[in-house]
């Protein structure tokens, strides 16, 4: 309703066409550290963003102030910006309406998961560390979001979603750290005590870590670590813009084998595991995109602008306008294999098990060369079993090269992160370059 009203005001103010994006959210996060709750926050907000178009000229303005006066000022600001902006000869115009498949992504259990419920969950998590002489840090968060998009060509979509997340880092006195996380739509599915136990058990097991010489090792990556790789590939290489500008690992390789045939990386907002919207921030339906299918380079995702510029179909991956980043996949997944995590570990003669990575960054986008650290549960694998914990290791490794030597993919997968996260399996990579180790 508000989105349509904003479109009417913007067009009345002089926009040739107009689009309105309305986002309303209510979120809360209970953080704990040192076995106590040290931050506990809740906030609500609602904002409208107007994209005004005059010919090929575009201006955007947004506000979170409510009321007709603020809305009118915001619309006027967007129109004024459009009037003074230069023409973009390649701007295709706002997209026309298309059918959207909606999904029920609101969990009443998350909506009613209040401060008392979050504190109870945090207490159950902390208890698992405290009784073992460990300290726990992490959080329990819930969020409820409603998004509506309308434009003067008839787009008019709206959807709500909820999400819940909990993370636990358990730390012991002998450098033993353990990690566990939960992500989902329904906060009542959080098994807090079990999550706390998982992290605390891993912390106990990873006490007194040892050194490992730098070099190439086989690695078994747990889902949290795999998700980092999938996200970097998707965010930096999965956009039609980065492909067109020659900055993507997909550039020039469509249809070519670039990885092991065990690797398929997709983006699919309609999948049952997806957490967010089924339309993008232009109100276009999101469609499944295979960035890599059976090791073969696929196609990037698009929005209305980059679909028109590249002659591809609009896959529905627009971010809010104006968007200098380009279209982006935010419902990423790596397709499963058939192994169990234990089978992957059992097949490694000498290698490294990684629970998760820390502070990963990209050094070369074309080879997707990443560097980062391991943390919270790194182990040496010898003769098919975890033998002893390792101090955190630094890796400097091309993700493309690493995913070209795959020893196995697990059937089990886990959702890592909230919307914008990734569904990831365990993964055995036969060659992974560790270039350093922390003290």
């Amino acid at each position, binding site marked *: 309703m508000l989105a349509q009203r904003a479109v009417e005001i913007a067009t009345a103010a002089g926009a040739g066409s107009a689009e309105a994006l309305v986002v309303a959210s209510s979120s809360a996060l209970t953080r704990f550290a040192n076995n106590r709750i040290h931050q506990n926050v809740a906030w609500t907000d609602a904002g409208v963003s107007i994209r005004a178009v005059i010919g090929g000229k575009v201006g955007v303005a947004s506000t979170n102030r409510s009321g007709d006066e603020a809305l009118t000022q915001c619309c006027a600001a967007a129109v004024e910006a459009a009037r003074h902006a230069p023409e973009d000869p390649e701007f295709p115009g706002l997209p026309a309406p298309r059918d959207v498949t909606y999904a029920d992504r609101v969990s009443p259990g998350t909506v009613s998961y209040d401060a008392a419920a979050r504190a109870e969950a945090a207490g159950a998590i902390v208890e698992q560390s405290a009784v073992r002489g460990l300290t726990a840090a992490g959080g329990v968060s819930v969020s409820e979001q409603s998004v509506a998009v309308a434009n003067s060509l008839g787009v008019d979509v709206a959807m709500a979603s909820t999400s819940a997340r909990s993370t636990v880092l358990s730390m012991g006195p002998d450098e033993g750290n353990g990690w566990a996380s939960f992500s989902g739509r329904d906060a009542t599915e959080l098994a807090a005590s079990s999550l706390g136990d998982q992290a605390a058990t891993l912390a106990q097991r990873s006490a007194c870590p040892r050194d490992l010489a730098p070099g190439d090792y086989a690695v078994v990556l747990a889902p949290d670590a795999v998700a980092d790789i999938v996200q970097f590939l998707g965010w930096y290489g999965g956009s039609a813009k980065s492909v067109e500008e020659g900055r993507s690992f997909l550039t020039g390789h469509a249809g070519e084998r670039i990885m092991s045939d065990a690797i398929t990386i997709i983006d699919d907002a309609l999948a049952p595991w997806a957490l967010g919207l089924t339309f993008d921030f232009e109100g276009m339906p999101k469609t499944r995109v295979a960035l890599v299918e059976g090791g073969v380079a696929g196609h990037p995702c698009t929005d209305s602008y980059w679909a028109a510029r590249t002659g591809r179909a609009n896959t529905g991956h627009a971010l809010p306008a104006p968007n200098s980043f380009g279209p982006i996949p935010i419902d990423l997944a790596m397709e499963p294999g058939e192994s169990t995590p234990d089978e992957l570990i059992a097949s490694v003669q000498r290698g490294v098990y990684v629970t998760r990575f820390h*502070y990963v960054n990209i050094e070369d986008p074309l080879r997707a060369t990443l560097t980062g650290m391991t943390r919270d549960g790194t182990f040496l694998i010898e003769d098919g079993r975890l033998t002893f914990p390792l101090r955190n290791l630094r890796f400097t490794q091309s993700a493309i090269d690493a995913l070209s030597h795959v020893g196995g993919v697990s059937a089990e997968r886990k959702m890592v992160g909230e919307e914008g996260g990734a569904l990831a399996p365990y993964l055995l990579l036969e060659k992974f370059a560790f270039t350093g180790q922390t003290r």
Partner: protein
Amino acid sequence: MRGFTAEVLDAAARAGASYADVRVTDTTSQKISVRNGVVEGVESSASFGFGVRVIADGAWGFAASADLDGDAAERVARQAVAIAKASATVGGHRVCLADVGAFDDTWSGACEIDPFAVSLEDKLAVLLEADAAMRAVSGIALATSDLGLLRVFKVFASSVGSYIEQRWTESRAGICAYAIDDGDVLPRSYPNSHGGGCYQAGWESIVALDLPGNATRIAEQAVALLTAPECPSATTTLVIDGGQIALQVHESIGHPTELDRVLGDEAAFAGTSWVAASDLDTLRYGSDLVNVTADATVPGSLGSFGYDDEGVPAQRDHLVRAGVLTGFLGSRESAVSIGRSSNGCMRADGWNRTPLIRMTTVSLEPGSAGSLEELIADTDEGLYIETNNSWSIDDKRLNFQFACEIGWEIRGGKLGRMVKRPNYTGITPKFWAGCDAICSTEAWQVWGLDNCGKGEPMQVAHVAHGAAPARFRDVEVGVGR
């Protein structure tokens, strides 16, 4: 606003808060971006709301809303107290705060030319001229130029008795030329990567950058990188430009000396620190040349303010003196753990976030090595690198790896062959122990950084670092080559 903030504080007290503060924040921003001659975005935005932070039953609670009308003061204050009471059910710890005075004051940052009053045409002219100059260099595949403006008005009031109004303006602009071929994407930025130059100042700061006048130079360097060799793998002497030193200070001194990290409050997300609170005044952080200050009073710096978000006055403090750890970045709560008063480092990213310990202007103080040219001339053999391209550091801020946009070999006190994609790695105290020269005041400048992420939910702070080029011995470069 006094009436509203008083209403909030009264409501919090009635609900059971033993301490409360409220921040009302009104921000206006504008962003303009140009890519290969096309104006990609012209965007303005406004955000307004308030946040209430309380202690009740000895624990923290925070609630925020964009709605200030009707019963909002009462409703949100009560919500914050209810949240605090829920916090108190886990752990049994009771929050204790270092004392702070009551201040009734106003503060404004310097701004000579209001950037919001400058016409869109004038702003676009700067960006488009720089864009054209970059793309006029043969071999440039992609050119980007952009600017961002921010205006903030913030009111803080607390149950201690403070009422503080602050307002400031920030301006940011930068350009980047990309040379791209089948195997390389090679960016070259000015005046810095990741957004360019950021200042607590007005339009005059963007004019002073002279983006068009520097566009051709960086574009030619980007193209030259295409045929430059890879940075070789070696352990060598490394000379680092001021911009990268700023980020090195940020990651390996600024973050590890944040007391909330030291005390474990950020352990699960950003990590902890290799430094312990008990290391104060004893830990050897680096060589005798290493002096690091945290200063919230530097004119024109993104790290400056009148009061932090706990109502603590802006201060200048030493974190490292002659290579020894002498201070931390602190808050009223964390300062108690080291027996000091707060040095005023608590800031929040907007009205809907609770304050965290953030850097102010955390600077490597200048040395006596003269200009960059004199430092190079004093170096027999090694590598000189400029402008950050990638950064990564472990959860205790010990093992780091940075990549830069460009480097040159140093031979016999002169710059030699250009190398592409130089990177280096190290362990924080060993690296800073190897610092044997820092350029002098004339080569020192403040580098703004407006993308410092920390906390959950993620908060992005605007901070700054004073830095001059410096030299480090026995550094591993060309990692993973």
